[in-house]
């Protein structure tokens, strides 16, 4: 008995380890923690969110199944329509500027000069410093009464009256766009710089010898080679911007008069602020089809560019 017990205790771990010799079991074991966490906190809430958006639940009221009523309601909500427009405008304009300025900055950095490593390290700061905290600095710079930007413009003689940056709907949107571009340019620049560095300078030199002007060299040599990296960078940036929350929440809170809401801030205002949980969930989920289309289109495009 004693002998078999000891032998059993020694023998038991071996089959388990043997099982890990099989790639399929090993893969299962290695993927299990990830699957549990992602299932519990992404798949399950997504499913719950869909259910929630089909009920009339509020804080303290359990609600009942109402079908697509919440979606019909937000469709007819003029603030929601402004929100959709804002989100597309915000995403489109910031992406164009981030790409253009980021590419420019990347080209400026793509050469040898003293202190390059230092400049590159400092340039990334807007991207790594917590967004909420740096956005507060901008909000303070845009303050209606104490704005340093107003002071500078006034001293340079451009304005005689104060500009109420965050009080006017259009100016508020512009201010938010400025901050988003400020925050995003470093990411574009550093990623595109990495892309530029993989392009052999000989290609550009060969084109130069053949008589190509700088602009042509960029357009026919550099840009096509940079396109795969550019597309991936854009994919990340577009999704992050489309689903942005922190920046608008801090800068305007969706105001003035609900003029600068994005999906996320409006969902927060309705769902958490006023407690209309199901409507808030519906607004958040309304992002999903747009995000889905963006991801699919860009992934298809990336694949096409990469296989070309």
């Amino acid at each position, binding site marked *: 008995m004693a002998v078999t017990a000891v032998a059993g205790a020694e023998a038991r771990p071996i089959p388990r380890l043997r099982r890990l010799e099989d790639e399929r079991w090993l*893969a299962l074991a290695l993927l299990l923690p990830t699957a549990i966490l992602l299932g519990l906190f992404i798949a399950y809430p997504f499913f719950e969110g869909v259910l929630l958006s089909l009920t009339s639940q509020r804080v303290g009221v359990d609600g009942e199944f109402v079908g697509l009523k919440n979606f019909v309601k937000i469709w007819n909500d003029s603030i929601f329509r402004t929100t959709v427009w804002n989100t597309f405008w915000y995403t489109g304009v910031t992406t164009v500027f981030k790409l253009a300025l980021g590419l420019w900055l990347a080209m400026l950095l793509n050469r040898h000069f003293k202190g390059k490593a230092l400049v590159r390290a400092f340039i990334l700061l807007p991207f790594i410093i917590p967004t909420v905290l740096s956005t507060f600095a901008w909000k303070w710079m845009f303050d209606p009464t104490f704005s340093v930007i107003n002071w500078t413009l006034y001293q340079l003689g451009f304005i005689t009256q104060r500009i109420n940056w965050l009080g006017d709907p259009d100016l508020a949107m512009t201010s938010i766009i400025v901050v988003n571009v400020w925050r995003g340019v470093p990411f574009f620049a550093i990623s595109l710089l990495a892309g530029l560095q993989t392009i052999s300078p000989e290609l550009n030199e060969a084109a130069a010898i053949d008589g190509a002007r700088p602009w042509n060299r960029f357009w026919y040599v550099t840009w096509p080679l940079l396109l795969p990296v550019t597309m991936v960078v854009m994919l990340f940036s577009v999704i992050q911007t489309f689903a942005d929350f922190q920046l608008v929440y801090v800068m305007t809170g969706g105001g003035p008069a609900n003029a600068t809401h994005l999906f996320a801030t409006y969902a927060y205002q309705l769902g958490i602020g006023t407690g209309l949980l199901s409507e808030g969930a519906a607004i958040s989920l309304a992002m999903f089809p747009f995000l889905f289309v963006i991801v699919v289109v860009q992934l298809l495009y990336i694949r096409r560019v990469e296989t070309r």
Partner: protein
Amino acid sequence: MIEGALWRKWVFYNIPLILFVFVLLFPFYWMIITTFRPDGELYKPWNAVSYQPFWTNNPTLEHIKYLFEETSFARWMFNTMFIALVSTIISLFCGVLAGYALARLNFPWAGSLGTVIFVTYLVPQTLLFIPLAQIIRNFELGDTPWSLILTYPTFLIPFCTWLMMGYFKAIPKELEECARIDGASRWKAMVYIVIPVAVPGILSSGIIAFTLSWNEFIYALVFLSSPDQKTVPVGVTSELIRGDVFFWGPLMAGALLGSIPVAIVYSFFVEHYVSGLTGSVKG
């Protein structure tokens, strides 16, 4: 490559670069100067005659003092640090294992699982925060650090996995095969041979995961309610703005001090951070 007159170099390269650096860094300068400027100078209208925005002759520590004496700022720093560290460790653990499996093992659906990871990598937090808040409440995790420690991995794991897949793919298969021929089990070959080689990748993903969790806002805003549980971004937002009154001095001091841990980690590992960032883009 481009040779030419000195003025051309200045006009086309140096001056634009200086402008970029100036604009990108100015808000941080503004944060610092506001932190040390006394209230009397802070709240002067922008067109006041004696307004000197860019410098102060009377630096003060009163805002920092206010932060530590009148608010739970020290507590917020600790909370944020704790949450960021633990969720980074969890995400690295899961991400390294999953990345290894997806990059180096042959099993059914390996390819489609990789795609699933990539797609979850793209799920923004703002899509799920309302149902997730209810789930957190049902699990009785609300208003505890665990509500964030367990949910931050949802965006950190896909990122770490994706990055680690790139690193693992770059390690030659022969390295592992040698160990296996010498009698190491698959598990041992992974733990003692492949993972140590991938340490630069682990460092990169760890640093980025740390900065991402320090940066996270909406989950912390929704899941935490008592002042002592808050993280720095949420605490600063909710405790230093009362109604319409912004306490700009302490607010900027909080923003400055709250950025320092991230800045320190970043400054030590700039190269790892950059290689992780660009690695994640190349996929």
